[in-house]
């Protein structure tokens, strides 16, 4: 184990190199570009023995790794924002074909207006397709989740694609120390991909996902559904195994921060979770019993973990960086459903379009929420508010 200072993007590229992938295809987009540039470098220098396929679009990038994955190769691609949406159709083909493709999504707001900064709308918008979705909150975790993605996705009990989300710039372009395992240890922990019971290759004649009866279409979705349920167990198992082997303290689907004696729980995901934890620390000093539950995975949704945590506090505050228009914040909606309305929930929508959020912002939000609850102003029915302190009256 050696410590290296890496940016989120280079850490992901490093994980891809250690995973010894066979085929990479991607199209550059800020803030993902460095990942694919770095991988192209590795291939050029012979540090990674992979085929790097250049394409004219993200739709094609995902189509290329789809074919490669169906032929048994271990593959990787990466994208962001508008270009994730450009892949939209292929996301579903990949999921319904249950190909264990790993894709980094460096989160970035969707226009208009053009913005290159991070919110979570791009990744969360595609959450229904059938991909496992991890959310990193540090550079090291971006590395870890990428490696684990191969173990989980390729596991015979799962066979699903995995998206690794990391916040644009806050993680992708920020340098942090990363404890890198030895390559030989990683190879041992992540052996080459096991062949599928079928293989697309010259001479074999069959088609994948051909026109068929409607019942078949529904059944394929049901198989994805079942695999997602099994994935929860496998993800817990794999992340705990990884944490033991590579000396990590975070694992499982949810990271808990001071939840043991908490009366109020803050739920969120992504890079800004660190700021929320810092705010919780400050509030603890002021006597507010606040804990934080950070989702490491959004799909499959860690309903069991959250149900347990949320029902042991007075009220839950979900801070969302993506919104389902006409309804509520994306994670809040999921949490309310998972807790069956048994918990008092407030939802704050913040940081959209890349608006910067620091510990002081979280402190004021959480303090306001606790005071609102204690004054009896927060009723048991769920509601959402937008946090825009620069707008008068917000």
């Amino acid at each position, binding site marked *: 184990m050696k410590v290296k200072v890496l940016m989120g993007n280079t850490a992901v590229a490093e994980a891809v190199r250690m995973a010894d992938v066979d085929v990479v295809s991607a199209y550059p987009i800020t803030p993902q570009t460095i990942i694919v540039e770095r991988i192209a470098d590795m291939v050029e220098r012979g540090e990674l023995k992979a085929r790097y396929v250049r394409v004219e679009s993200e739709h094609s990038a995902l189509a290329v790794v789809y074919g490669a994955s169906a032929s048994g190769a271990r593959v990787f691609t990466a994208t962001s924002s508008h270009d994730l949406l450009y892949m939209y159709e292929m996301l579903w083909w990949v999921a319904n074909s249950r190909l264990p493709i790993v894709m980094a999504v460096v989160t970035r707001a969707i226009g208009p207006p053009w913005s290159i900064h991070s919110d979570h709308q791009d990744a969360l918008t595609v959450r229904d397709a059938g991909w496992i979705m991890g959310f990193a909150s540090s550079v090291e975790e971006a590395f870890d989740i990428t490696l684990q993605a191969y173990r989980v996705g390729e596991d015979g009990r799962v066979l699903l694609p995995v998206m690794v989300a990391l916040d644009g710039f806050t993680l992708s372009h920020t340098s942090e120390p990363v404890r890198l395992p030895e390559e030989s240890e990683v190879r041992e922990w992540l052996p080459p991909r096991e062949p599928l*019971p079928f293989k697309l290759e010259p001479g074999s004649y069959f088609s994948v996902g051909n026109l*068929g009866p409607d019942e078949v279409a529904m059944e394929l979705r049901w198989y994805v559904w079942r695999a997602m349920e*099994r994935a929860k167990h496998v993800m817990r198992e794999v992340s705990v195994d990884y944490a033991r082997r590579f000396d990590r303290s975070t694992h499982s689907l949810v990271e808990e921060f001071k939840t043991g004696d908490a009366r109020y729980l803050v739920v969120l995901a992504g890079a800004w979770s660190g700021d929320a934890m810092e705010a919780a620390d400050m509030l603890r000093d002021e006597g507010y019993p606040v804990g934080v539950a950070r989702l490491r995975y959004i799909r499959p949704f860690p309903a069991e973990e959250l149900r347990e945590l949320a029902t042991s506090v007075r009220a839950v505050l979900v801070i969302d960086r993506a919104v389902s228009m006409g309804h509520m914040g994306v994670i809040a909606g999921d949490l309310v459903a998972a807790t069956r309305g048994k918990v008092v929930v407030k939802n704050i929508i913040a940081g959209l379009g890349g608006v910067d959020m620091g510990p002081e912002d979280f402190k004021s939000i959480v303090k306001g929420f606790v005071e609102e609850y204690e004054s009896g102003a927060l009723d048991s029915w769920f509601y959402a508010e937008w946090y825009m302190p620069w707008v008068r009256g917000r």
Partner: protein
Amino acid sequence: MGLVYEPVDLEREAFEDLRGFIEKLLSKPAPGSAGRTGAWRLYRPAVDAGRCIKCGICWLYCPDDVISWAPKGLPIIDYSYCKGCGICSSVCPVKAIDMVLEGE
């Protein structure tokens, strides 16, 4: 949560699912693997054997490969899979194929 997990035996379910899944996802070319598509047809191509010059152009153009034809023979249309697109009728140089409304 500590560093413990309950190992769950999901192998059996996963194995059964995978078998079913692959059977549904993959298909090999075979007649009617997507059902009897002739049921989609609204107009049926009817060959007038007296007019037909047995050139085989309809056989060449049929996009669904449901016309069989041997040189100097009459074309034979497989109505189980002919969707009634009418291409054969429109390419026929002697207008020997009429599109007839089904049920008439």
